[in-house]
């Protein structure tokens, strides 16, 4: 059992164990939905919802799950919450649900969520799992926001749909294309590693 403080448990998801930038988990949705800030935000919030509730359920029933079928159990729990998120978006935010397409149902195979159940919720108390899920999803949301802001501002000259660049600005079309997603994330990973090696040395 770790003796981390609640604060440290939350903060580790933001940087030290940031799911996207440090653990390279959940890269598919990260790349796919960050063409605009609004879709990135929606995906981050939907994932937050699923991760927190799945961690809550898994950590409360962890003693009842036989070890052999634990993965299947986690998947069913996660799939149920993804279905709720998907139906909710379809009912209340139809345009966003359309823009996200198959990526909302695909939260079910997001390795961040399954990874946290296996690595954390299944062996920690409900409270700790909740803090851990909150930290991880904030880290995921932050990574999505940084990536989608860069891509929307450079690729369309807008932020959340509002014009932020002057009329002199020529949008870099490549940034909204798939290629822009790969290249921007590659550079961000490099920057994250650079910062990490700097802080380690000092």
């Amino acid at each position: 059992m770790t003796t981390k403080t609640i604060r440290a448990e939350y903060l580790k998801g933001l940087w030290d164990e940031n799911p996207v930038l440090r653990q390279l988990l959940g890269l598919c949705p990260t790349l796919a939905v960050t063409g605009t800030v609004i879709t990135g935000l929606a995906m981050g919030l939907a994932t937050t919802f699923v991760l927190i509730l799945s961690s809550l359920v898994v950590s409360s029933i962890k003693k009842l799950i036989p070890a052999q079928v634990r993965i299947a159990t986690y998947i069913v729990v996660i799939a149920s919450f993804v279905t709720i998120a998907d139906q909710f978006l379809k009912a209340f935010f139809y345009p966003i649900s359309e823009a996200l397409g198959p990526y909302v149902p695909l939260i079910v195979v997001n390795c961040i969520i399954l990874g946290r159940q296996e690595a954390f919720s299944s062996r920690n108390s409900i409270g700790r799992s909740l803090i851990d899920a909150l930290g991880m999803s904030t880290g995921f949301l932050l990574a999505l926001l940084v990536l989608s802001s860069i891509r929307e501002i450079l690729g369309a000259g807008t932020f959340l749909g509002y014009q932020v660049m002057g009329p002199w600005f020529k949008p870099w079309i490549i940034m909204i294309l798939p290629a822009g997603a790969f290249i921007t994330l590659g550079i961000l990973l490099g920057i994250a590693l650079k910062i990490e090696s700097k802080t380690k040395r000092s």
Partner: protein
Amino acid sequence: MELIAIFISAVLVQNFVLYYFLGICPFLGVSKKIDSALSMGLAVTFVMSITAVVSWLINNLILIPYDLGYLQIVSFILVIASLVQLVEMFIRKISPPLYQALGIYLPLITTNCAIMGLALIAALNGYSFVETVIFGFGSGIGFTLAIVLMAGIREQLDLSDVPEPLKGAGIALIVAGIMALAFNGFIGMLT
């Protein structure tokens, strides 16, 4: 003609890795050597073709007639997870050499979002049975093409001088970006 268009589109234009961003984990993880990349690609193609058939049957014979659309996510993921296990046991029994070649990659495929994505996208596009089969097979070939090309580039990359922080995943993503740009050129083929 329609079928050929679906096939070409699945292989080149709407490539699973470079257009839909699905299957990035194996794409980055198993693309260090051409041999293993090819095995992974073949295993994915194999599972994708079967998944396409099974998910179409479930969707069109059970979920749609009984108005159970909301169970789509749960049923697809459970079927895919058990299907991969079944395929693994089946191959081990009937063809040990094939199992040797694909063996370690098969369990990895369960959590591969490309498989789940295939089932969902085929259902979303409302493909007919034959179209779904072509789409599944073509997507697998497209994945294989992308991962083998990537492995070829990365074998060369080992010898070049990459800046320290970009080593590993960073440079791999940038290379994938350039590949995506090249594949973008294929869009003209379908218009």
